């Protein structure tokens, strides 16, 4: 297939260019390395905080693939998380597979659903795509509720025991792969194609960019990781519950992180995840409900005043940092 040219295996000459990545990539890699080593030495409570922060970051990178890179706003992204979580819960609950291995199943279901859904809905532009994705998520949540084999309104309750370290390394690995793929996607041929689509899709088409396949490719990646993160998220609470698995708040948080951090940038989702995670967790303990007021105000302000987000604005207004921050 012609498209597989994008996916060729790395050669020796590529290894050289992999070592020549910019300072941002090195920074993120060092952060991830420090976190990975440090996780063994911290106690359980900080570890659970770290796990949920990494879940946020992984969700932000998942959303960045579609909304950040192509500009297609996906309000219903939680559907991939929810289906991934249900696939994971079904496999773990029925066949007693290991929770770790079943995360792959969750990701695969997310990928397949994203490819199927994307083949239909990615033809719709702008708001039509946003609305189609929103109603798909709502419909999927409603359909799952009506399937007795999946526990109906009760969901799937599992008693897996508490294994924070293996959960941590699973979500760490997912995030690391996402960061690597985001770097590869934004710094190559695909990145040019995606930026062209974001700028003007019809013009991109006339330039010979295979718009449909490229969009489907990033949408599939996005669904794959959202499904995998949904499984890990279900693993941390040891069960799948319909209201929580399809809670639109997750889509909204993902979108908020991408917008706040800087959509389509390489480091933006990570910045956005930290910036959204801090008020989210702080107000959750101090004044529950206030966290979404803060996040909502932040998103509205950023969208209207600095639509490039934090990383995009820094790059725009401080030219010296342009070479360093990507």
């Amino acid at each position, binding site marked *: 297939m012609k498209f597989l040219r994008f996916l060729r295996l790395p050669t020796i000459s590529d290894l050289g260019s992999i070592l020549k990545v910019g300072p941002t990539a090195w920074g993120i890699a060092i952060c991830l390395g420090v976190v990975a080593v440090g996780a063994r030495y911290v106690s359980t409570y900080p570890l659970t905080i770290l796990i949920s922060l990494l879940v946020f970051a992984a969700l932000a990178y998942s959303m960045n693939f579609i909304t950040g890179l192509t500009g297609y706003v996906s309000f219903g992204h939680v559907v991939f998380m929810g289906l991934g979580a249900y696939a994971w819960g079904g496999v773990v609950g029925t066949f007693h597979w290991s929770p770790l291995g079943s995360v792959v199943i969750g990701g695969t279901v997310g990928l397949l659903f994203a490819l199927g859904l994307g083949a239909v809905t990615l033809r719709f*532009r702008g708001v039509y795509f946003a*609305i189609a994705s929103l*109603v*798909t998520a709502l*419909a999927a949540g*409603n359909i799952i509720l009506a399937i007795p084999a999946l526990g109906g309104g009760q969901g799937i309750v599992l008693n897996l025991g508490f294994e924070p370290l293996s959960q941590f390394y699973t979500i760490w690995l997912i995030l690391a792969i996402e960061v690597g793929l985001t770097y590869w996607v934004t710094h190559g041929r695909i990145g040019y194609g995606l930026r062209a689509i974001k700028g003007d899709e019809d013009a991109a088409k006339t330039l010979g960019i295979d718009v449909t396949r490229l969009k489907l490719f990033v949408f599939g990646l996005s669904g794959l990781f959202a499904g995998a993160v949904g499984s890990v998220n279900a693993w941390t609470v040891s069960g799948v519950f319909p209201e929580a698995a399809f809670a639109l708040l997750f889509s909204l948080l993902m979108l908020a992180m991408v917008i706040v951090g800087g959509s389509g940038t390489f480091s933006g989702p990570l910045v956005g995840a930290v910036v959204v995670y801090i008020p989210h967790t702080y107000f959750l303990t101090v004044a529950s409900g*206030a966290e*979404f007021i803060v996040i909502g105000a932040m998103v509205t302000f950023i969208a209207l005043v600095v639509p490039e987000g934090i990383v995009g604005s820094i790059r725009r207004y401080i030219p010296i940092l342009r070479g360093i921050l990507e």
Partner: protein
Amino acid sequence: MPDASAIVDQLVFGVVYGLLLGCVFALLAHGLNLIWGIAKVVNIAHGEFIMLGAYGAFFLNLSLGFNPLQSAAIDAVIGLAVGLAFYFGVLHRELRGKEAMTPRSEMVTLVATFGLSLLIANAAKIAWTGDLVGIPWSAGSVSLGSLRIPMGGVYVAILSVAIIFLTHVFFTRTHLGLAIRAYSQDIPAAQLQGINPTFVSAFGTSLGFAATMAGGAFLTVMFPTGINPYMGALYAPISYVIVVLGGPGKMWGSLVGGLTLGVILHVGQVFLDSSIAAAIAFLTLIPVLIFRPEGILR
């Protein structure tokens, strides 16, 4: 096997009640449609303004004893002011001086109104708690054979259709209405005719908000105990589906779409699980977008 006549009765009830509900849905969608058609902005916080309209009716009933029909009129006036505030607070910055909606502005307004929806829903939850509240008002009911029709539902359905009809008259018979339509079709050409773009789009947005908030008050008649801060999360997607079904910018489209959706929801509940009926109602959007992206009306 259940009695065949009982099923027919249920079916008739589903259709009648679905039509009544569909009229109110049509008004909710009509509010969204006005903003979508005129300012070319899809208001993701639409559901939150429906919720505010419903709470407006609730508090007016609590403090002054108004029934929801009276409250709807006051809600509509408040809606005009809220619409102006929304236009100048959120949209004006992005729409000012634009000759057409760019994909970038589209994304900015989607995301900004989405942030607003998070903000309003959660502020409402803190202010008024997350409990379900309702308005104890009933206009009695009439019996037609075995069918009991709530009169409150009939009143709000008639009023909803009347409001859509009046907007139609406004847009086809008055000078200002024609100016707004001209603006919605071609901004530079409208400006060449001496139409002030800011005024007409702000006015159109205000009208949309007035319809939305009045619709929120009417909704409390259809669902007497259904007011809570997160009710917008259900009615906003319903409104999007209706507008797309009818075609954005088409006034009678929202009525046709609303009636369609109301009947699908209620007749679906007769034969299927209510969550499956809701899923079907939502998913009708996808084939319409594929085969008739301009809406089911020509």
